[in-house]
């Protein structure tokens, strides 16, 4: 098991463009959470997907959207990119369901640079 995988590793975009980041969860996991980690900061929760639905969202604008596929993989989309969107985007997978212990396992991240 390769654990949580993310693609691409690095990405450079310009302001106003749109970007899609991808995540494959650890084998057996059904829940995917996305985090943004700006330089010098801890990861900040964006949203979480379970059973192909967004079930929890952090304090991020609607420009940030996502999707989960039947195989539990997930995409993070960011529209109308701003310079401030430059960050490391982390994906974490866990075994979901209410009341679960759901330890989160993190991927290596995608480094997004917006010029």
């Amino acid at each position, binding site marked *: 098991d390769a654990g949580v995988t993310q693609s691409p590793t690095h990405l450079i975009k310009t302001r106003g463009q749109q970007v899609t980041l991808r995540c494959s969860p650890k084998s057996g996991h059904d829940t995917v959470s996305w985090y943004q980690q700006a330089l010098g900061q801890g990861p*900040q929760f964006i949203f979480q997907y379970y059973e192909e639905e967004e079930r929890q969202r952090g304090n991020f604008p609607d420009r940030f959207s996502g999707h989960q596929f039947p195989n539990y993989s997930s995409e993070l989309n960011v529209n109308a990119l701003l310079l401030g969107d430059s960050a490391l985007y982390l994906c974490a997978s866990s075994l979901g369901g*209410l009341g679960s212990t759901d330890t*989160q396992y993190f991927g290596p991240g995608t480094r997004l640079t917006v010029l």
Partner: protein
Amino acid sequence: AQRVTQPEKLLSVFKGAPVELKCNYSYSGSPELFWYVQYSRQRLQLLLRHISRESIKGFTADLNKGETSFHLKKPFAQEEDSAMYYCALKGVSTRGYSTLTFGKGTMLLVSP
């Protein structure tokens, strides 16, 4: 609102010295606390969680609800402990779903 504070950006110690990484939290419910670690060029990984009351790589952390703290301790630091450490709080929303809130992290540097 839930919040995690790690007051130190950098903690530098010599090998063999005791280490204490501070973490304070703010949460109205019953918290679940974690320590995550990120070694150089590796992904973020769980170090320990308070409900397990375990010692991992010689590290321990005790939840102090009175002081709303969850400090990470190790009696004798090793060079391989050098890494970025994040304290995280799992809170449960009104809808019943849990989310992780991270602190800004503390870089631990252990010198020979």
